[in-house]
Structures are given as C-alpha cells and as structure tokens.
C-alpha cells in the first residue's frame, strides 16, 4: 500500500467520524399554496401545524404576456384573517414575458411587482417572510432578460432572500440555460413528461427520467431546496384525440362503475356522460389518472442523495390542498423529508 493511499484512507475516516458525530440534519418542511383564493381548511391547518411548517410558499399572482402586453393574472384573494405561518410570496412568470422584452419594460415590471405584493400584503394583513420566490421556466433565449429582472428586483432590497425555482432541464443544461444570480434555488423535482402525450409514463414524476437530469446536481453553484410533487390529476382524451388536464382528481372519484370503467391500471373510459371537476365528460372519452404516492417520493429522495445533492434546509411539497393530502399522511411527509 503506498503512502498516498494511506493518507486518503485516513482523510476519509476523519470525514466519516466528523459526519457521524453530527446530529442528523433537520429538514424544514414547507408547502406551496397555489389556489387563487387563499383559505386553509381544517385538514390543511392540521398538516401545517403537525409538520411544524413555519414558512408557506404562496402563489400571489402570475405574470403573463397577452397580445404583447405584460400583465398580472389570477391575483390571489386572501380571505383568512389569521395566518400563523410566515408567507413567502411566489410569483409565477410565463417564459413568454421575457421573450423580446426590453430592459425598460422589465424595469416597469419590477416596479409593478413590488407594488402589487405590497398591496396584497397590506390588504390581507399577513406576516411576510424575508424571502420572495420567482417561478419561471426560462430558457437559453430568455435567460438574459429574466436574470436582468432578478437583478433589478434584488436591487430593490424588498426582501433579504430572492429565490427562484429551477427546473430539471435547467440543472442538466446549465451551461446553455445559465444560472440565475439569486440567493437560493428550489429544484422542482417533477414535471418529467408531457401529460398531453397520454402515454404509459407518469408525467408528474417518472423517477428514471428525473434521475437522468440530475447527474451534475452536485456542481450547481447555488444552494438548492427541493420541491417534491404530491399532486395528482386526470388527463382526458376526446374523440379528436385532444387532451385536457383536470387537476386534483383522485382514484376514488373514478370509482363509480356506472360512470367510469377501468381499462387498465390508471386508464379509464367514460361509460356515461357526467361532470368531473366541473367539466362535462362525454361517453367514450378516455381518462388517464396520474397520482404520486409516498413510495415514489422515497425513491426520488434516494436518487437525489445518490447523485451528490448537497442539502440545504427545506423540502417544499407542491402543493397543499386537502385533495392532494389524501395520499400522504403526516407521517409519510415527515419520513420523506427526513430521507433527504
């Protein structure tokens, strides 16, 4: 055994001892809240309190581009008078907003966003966290404008921490899509496929596909929280092979065999026309149900760790909604967050 090798063994041993002495890293659990009307029901409140959630990521509004005009959409209405959690505003920005948009328009946008967030906070009397998050599926062509937006927003010093969502492709192709200059990111560990493809893969999270995207996750130069999916939805296909997404559909809603027939696992046919989630479905239309279960997320966390993920503090589940919580007990969510 040569000398060099001896040193290496000694060094590794030291690291091992150091790590073993440390307490297991305590991850903070958080959720996204994505509805237009903010109102927590008793189940949701129970989850928040028992999982000791201090910070809640709440979508405040979207920013979209319509006929060339940049404007807000689906601005949140906050009905609750008392919210005990700190609220972290999340602003979803359509990628289109940054396509061919000049800096003057972006400066204006920063101004609007700041004022709109202030307005919502003042009217709803909520406790704001010192973080804000932007959510944009930016691409190589829009990176420059989006990053300029982030820079300008940061300069306003409204919050101490500016974070942003990072999609799987943005991790994998970071040399092409670029890395935003933010305080931290959240890796959205979901949306691995196109739901409208209506194929056998789960488009919310296919663990094999997702793992292909994160082999270089350890190189990512900004700290990353992890967002994991707990949502489900149904995809309906009509006579013209057009497809449509129905959010929040659970298996039990398709259990009535007079209305729905199961063709194979997760695939159904409408036997009798009826409403599902407010959409009228017609006889013979096909449905694919996509659901995520705790076991899927345990595989996900294992894969994330295996690929050298340097953990930061938070696991954020997308998204808190009584319907989604059907498949996840408090214990499940605790176990998943600890497994990371």
């Amino acid at each position: 055994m040569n000398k060099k090798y001896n040193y290496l063994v000694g060094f590794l041993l030291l690291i091992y001892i150091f790590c073993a002495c440390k307490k297991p890293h305590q991850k903070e659990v958080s959720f996204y809240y994505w509805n237009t009307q903010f109102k927590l029901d008793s189940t949701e409140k129970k989850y928040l309190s028992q999982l000791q959630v201090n910070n809640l990521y709440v979508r405040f509004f979207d920013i979209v581009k319509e006929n060339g005009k940049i404007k807000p959409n689906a601005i949140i209405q906050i009905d609750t008078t008392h919210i005990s959690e700190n609220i972290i505003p999340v602003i979803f920005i359509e990628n289109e907003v940054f396509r061919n948009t000049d800096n003057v328009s972006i400066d204006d946008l920063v101004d609007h966003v700041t004022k709109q967030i202030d307005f919502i906070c003042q009217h709803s009397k909520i406790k704001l966290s010192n973080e804000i998050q932007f959510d944009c599926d930016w691409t190589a062509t829009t990176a420059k404008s989006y990053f300029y937006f982030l820079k300008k927003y940061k300069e306003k010093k409204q919050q101490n921490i500016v974070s942003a969502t990072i999609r799987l492709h943005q991790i994998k192709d970071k040399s092409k899509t670029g890395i935003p200059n933010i305080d931290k990111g959240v890796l959205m560990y979901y949306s691995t496929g196109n739901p409208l493809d209506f194929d056998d893969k789960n488009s919310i999270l296919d663990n094999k596909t997702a793992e292909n995207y994160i082999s270089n996750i350890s190189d990512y130069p900004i700290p990353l929280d992890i967002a994991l999916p707990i949502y489900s939805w149904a995809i309906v296909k009509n006579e013209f092979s057009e497809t449509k997404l129905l959010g929040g559909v659970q298996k039990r809603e398709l259990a009535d065999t007079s209305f729905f027939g199961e063709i194979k696992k997760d695939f159904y046919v409408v036997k009798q026309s009826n409403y599902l989630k407010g959409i009228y479905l017609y006889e013979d239309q096909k449905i694919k149900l996509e659901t995520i279960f705790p076991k899927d997320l345990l595989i996900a966390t294992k894969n994330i760790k295996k690929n050298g993920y340097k953990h930061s503090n938070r696991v954020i589940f997308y998204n808190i909604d009584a319907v989604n919580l059907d498949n996840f007990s408090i214990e499940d969510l605790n176990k998943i967050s600890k497994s990371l």
Partner: protein
Amino acid sequence: MKKYIILFLSLILANNSHVLACSWYDPDEDYYNLFDQNLIADPSLSPFLLTYYSSYYEKPLEEGEVREVINYNIEEWKKFFDGKIVNADLNYLVYESTIGELSKILATNSFAKAPSELMHSEFLVEKGKAALEYLVFAKKCEQWATLNSSDDWTYSRKKMDKPAFMATAKEGNLLYAKTENKELKLRIAYQLVRLSHYGGFNDDAIRYFTTYVEPLGIKNLIYYYALEQKGGALFNQKKYAEAAYTFVKVFDNTPDRKVSSYNSFRIWNQLQFSDALKLCITPEEKAALYAMRGYHNFSNGLKEMENIYSVAPASAKIELLAVRELNKAERALMELGVNYGDTSSFLNPKTSLHSYLIKMIKFSEEAIKENKIKRVDFWKAYLAHLYFLNNQYAKAETLSKSIISTDKALIQQAKRTEFSSYLAGLNKIGIAEEDIIFSRFLKTTSTDERSFIYEVLGHKYLVQNDLAKAFLCHNNLSSLYANHDIKICNALIDFVSKKDKNSLENKLVKDQLGDEKSGSIALNDIKGTYYLFAGDYATALELFKKVPSDYSCLNNITRYNYNLASEETLDGFNGYGKISAKIFSNSVRFYFEDNEAKALTDLTFKDKAFYFITDQMNKQQLVESILQLQKLSVKKDEIGAMANYLLANYFFNITAAGYYRNIPYYEQGNYSIYSYYNNSGSDNPKPFEKLYNFNGFANRATLSFGYESAMNLYLKAEELSQNQEFKARSVFMASKCELETYHKKNEDLPYELSYWAKPWQLYSDTNRPMFARLKRYYSKTKFFTEAKTNCVYFKYYLNAR
C-alpha cells in the same frame, strides 16, 4: 360605460403552467379549411365558430375590407331620439361627453360653449333633458363599473365602499322616481343593478331588478343588460342553476352580449345542469343551454346536437355545433406538414375519428330524412362534406351535385366539396383529369382549396412516379438547393423539355420555374452542383459548360454584423459565381462572422504553380481548378505536396466546420445554414418515395461531407514535403479534421459523457493523436508557436503534459 369588467366571476384560476412546458404557435393556420363555417344561418352566433387561435372567432378580413361593428346600445339611443341624431354624435354623447358639459346644457338650457356634437335641439326638450340627466348619473356610476380596468395591476384600483355605494344609489333612486320616460327608467334601473352587483351588494342587485326593472314591462336590449347583471349577482350567491338560466336568456336574446353571457356561464355538476334545464321554458332556451355546454372546445358537440335536435330541431344552434365538429374533423384529417411522419394521416381517419364521423353522418342523414331541420340544402352540403372526409367520395360528389339553392355561398361550398371529392377519389392523373383540375384552379377563389389541390395532386403524382410534376406542386428549384436530388433533377430536365405541355403543365412551369429556358439553365447548374460535390468533376464540368458564365441565382443579402454593429451587404457567392479563391486557404482559427481576409490567412494557393486559381471563380472555374490540382497532386515534389494541401483545404472548407460550408447549400452567408447541420435526420432522411408528397422538400438537407478526404490529403502533403513549417501546418490542419470527426461521432452522447461535461476529452492523447505528432516532430517550428498561441485546445494539451 364603454368598458365593462366581469367582476362577478372569480373564476380565473391559477393555471397549470408551473408544471407544464409551453409553446406558441398559431394552430388555425395548420390545416386546410374547405368547409366554410360562416355558412351557418344565424350570423350572431359567429363568435362561437371554431378557432384555437383566440377565445372567439372573428371572420378573417379580405384585403381592404373593414370590419363592421354595430354598437347596439347606440342603436337603442338612435331609436330613442327617433333617428334624428347621427351615430357619431350619439357616440360622443354617450361615451365621450363630460358630466360638466351635460350639466351645463341642463342648467342653462342652451348650448353656450357646448361641443358641436351636443348641439341638438332634442336635448332642450323634456325627453332630451331627462336623457341628459340620466347620462349625468350614468357617468357617475361609470367609475365604479370600470374600476380602472385598463390597468391590470390591482394595486392602483379604486374600490367602492358601502358609503360610496349608498350615496350613488340614493341619487339613482331619486332620479328613478323623478323620471317619467319608461325607457330612461329602465336605463337608470340597469345602472343600479350593475352598481350593486359590481360593489358586491348582490341582494341589492336582485332587489333592484325585481322592483325597478321588471315592473316596467319592457324587454328591450337594456332589460337583458340588466338581467345579465342579475345573473352575476346570482352567481356570486352561489345560485349556479339560476345564474346559468339567466345567462341562457341573455345569450338567446341579445346580439351583443352572447360572448359575455357565455363567459359568465358556469355549471359545476349534473344536478345544477338538470335544475337549469328545468328552469328553461321555451325549446330555444333549452337549445341555448345545450349549445352553451357544447361550445366548450373539449365537448362532444354531436351529443349536444342530438340533445338540441330532440327539443328544437329547427334551432340554428345545431348548425353552429355541426360546423364546429366538422371543422375539428378537418383539422384532424387535413393537417399541414404531416407527410414526414411514419404514416400519413392526411385524409386518413384514425379508428376513433372514423367512428365519430360515421355517427355525424348518421345524424345528418336522419335529420335530412325527417325534414324537421330548417335548411335542408345546408344539411345536404354539410353531409356531402362529411362523406368527403370519411373517404366516401362518390357519395359526396353525387350529393353535392344534387344541391339546388339560391344561396351563392352554399353553392360555392357544394362545388368545392364536389371537386375535392373528385380529386381525392382519382386513381390516376392523366391528361383528361389535368384539364378538369386546371379549370377548377381558374374557378376557385379559396386559397385553402388551391393549396389543398396541390396537396392531393402532389401526392397522386408521386404515387404514379411523376416526380417532376409532384415536385412542382410544392416547390420551385430553390427547394433543391439544400438537396440536389439527382432523380428529381433528371425528371425536371425531361419535363421542361417536353413538347406540347397542357394547360396545367404550363401553369406548373410558369408558377415554379418562370420559363423553360431559365428553368433549364438553373437545372444544369443544380445537376452540375450535384456532380461537383459527389466528386464527379468531369460530368460536373460538362453541365457547367451549359450555364452562362455570369449566371447567378441568389440576390445580395444584407445581414447584421455584430463586430461592426451595423447592417452590411454581402457581395459574395451568388449561387453560381463569385466563389473566392480562399476556398483553397486555411487558418489556425477563424470565426464564421469574420470577413474572408481575417478568417483565412494561408496564401499557399497564390504560388505561381497554381496560376489557374483566380481570385473569384464560378463553379465551372472551380471544377477546372480542382481538376488541375488533382493532376498536380500526383507529383512527388513540393508542388505535389502543395496541390494535395490545397485540395485538403477545399474539402475542409466545404464541411460543416469550414468557412465556405454555405456553398454546397446555395447560401450567401455561412451562418444562416446552421439549421441544415442541426437536422438530426439529415444523414438518413426518409426515402422520398415514402413521403405523402413533396411539401416541405426544401427542409430535407441531405448533403453531408466528411473530414476523411481532407485529413488524408493533409497527411499526404506532410509526407511529400520537405518543408518543416509546411509539414507542421499540414499536421495541425489534420488535427482539426480529427477534432471535427470526434465531435460528429459524439454529438448524441448524454450531457454527462459529452465534452461539455468533460472538456479534457477534446485534447486527450486518445482523441488527438495529431497533437502528439505535432509536438513530437515539429516543436521547433515557428508554426508550432503560432498554433500554441492561437489554439486553446493545443495549449491545454501541452500544459497537461
């Protein structure tokens, strides 16, 4: 009053974009539309015709056509003033005038300093004065109705509180009591219902409707405007069935509130729908309820057509749903650009669509048979088109021919369906058929139909191996620039020289080639170019001799020069001539945006032994130079070495990595052809015999030049020469070929294995043996230092050792 906002529907949902990838395209342009949706009987339903481009359909305007927009509210005012005031002035009165202007007229009973639009004696009599008083009140209400709706950011919006509401409502109550004219009373009541609704005072809105609107007993446009506001209030109170029924009535009784009432219409479950249906009194109301459910793009329109047919078979709403379903079928069956898929779905319905078409056909046949529908001719034209889409061409033709109508648009439709079926049903395109097709070209005005004819005709020609005509259905010769297909070239040359062409053939020549003479020159150039890049220089030379020496087929283009930060005109390669002698040059490193002088610095080609290389060459001169160089390259001396080296430069320069990579593709600049090299299918495109037709042929770039010839010639040059500097340069150039070969071989590797993730692969011993050779044998040369300075990889290579 001009801008309304829909406050009563908090239906805007946070979308799914957070978890979806998105893309943008215009889906309405992606198919051949042969059945005119505007044939429906009731034009007020036209916003509900099928479109995927925007929420509601708008008939495309012909050039120079102006869209006529009727303002029904102004029409009501016109009636109120017995037609005595022109629309422009009414428009000013209602939408532009200020409270101050109106109050002044009322106070002074005169037009002192009033704008000319308001100078109408009608305003000084009692009825007119009452109208002005109403308008003053309406303008006060307006601020609450529009709530700065032009500004989408809500932080700057005004909010109506209870005291503000009470004050405005009180004024309205007093005015309502004071006003005698019933129509004006109705308008005041409408303002009060709306004010209450927008303020969120839903009970008040409903109360005002019951106590102020209904007792007046007028059911004009304003009544339905007020009813719509009541619907909003009901919706806010979660009385969804009642609200839905209210919107049904507005939808059915107004020409201008159909879209807004549809927008507000929302049913969540079967119970609500059944309740709403029970509330509907007339068959037309029931039909409207079904139509509103069926209008959803995802709905099965046929089911709703059946529902409407069972209660109101003569309803115009069946036609609306019918044309929408047919349009969906056209989109599925006649999509553009489908010919490159594995199997063509053009006019070839999938099983699920086929069975749906059969159901639609059955419905229409029954409807015609039972004769309860309103317009039999429309339904016949409709059915004929369904037969056409379902490949029942003979039936479609017969039925179309049987239609007799005075409706010109309907007859035009029947003719289009008849011809489309005739064409689609043809087994062979011969002279007789070509005559018929040509005469149809002359008759039709529909651009979609013309394109459709080419789509099908191009297919039939291809099937019968009539390559030239198949090609000309969709292409001019520029489609061969990226792909000098020799079979097609030969077919075209034969076709151009064919004597006694018929009208259709002449049309193809005229439209796509200009005339026979210029067509045949261009074809000789393209065919010669094929042989040039296939390496058959003798044949190429023969063909280029038939091309005038000053021939050109590309215009000068301008492009933005990032180095100069300005537009520049490229006066270079013109498709045939103006090929620079630098095609025989090279450099250690260049950028595509560099100009020629900067990009390529080696001047070996200027040696007097190569006197035949002129500064600018046409393709004939290029071939002649190559042939000369080939002769010299067999010599075993320095000239032989240089000849090999110049040929190697030529071969390198026309590869994807070469400065003149544009020349094989007939492109002026060398970076607009990027897409050809990114065409992953370019190595193995689908054989054209298996395509549906030649639509999109120009995108089939098949040329691909390897680096092997260049590499071998560089090494031969090194072997033959005694000059160390020359040898070093040759080896370095060979190393460039080596790098490009490596790139090409590894382009499909996943990121983690690629040179993006592991850049050292680009200068490893295994992948760059030529670097090793350069270091081992030529490290003393001046060129070695030049390479070290200008080639980063080589520098890394040396540093790593």
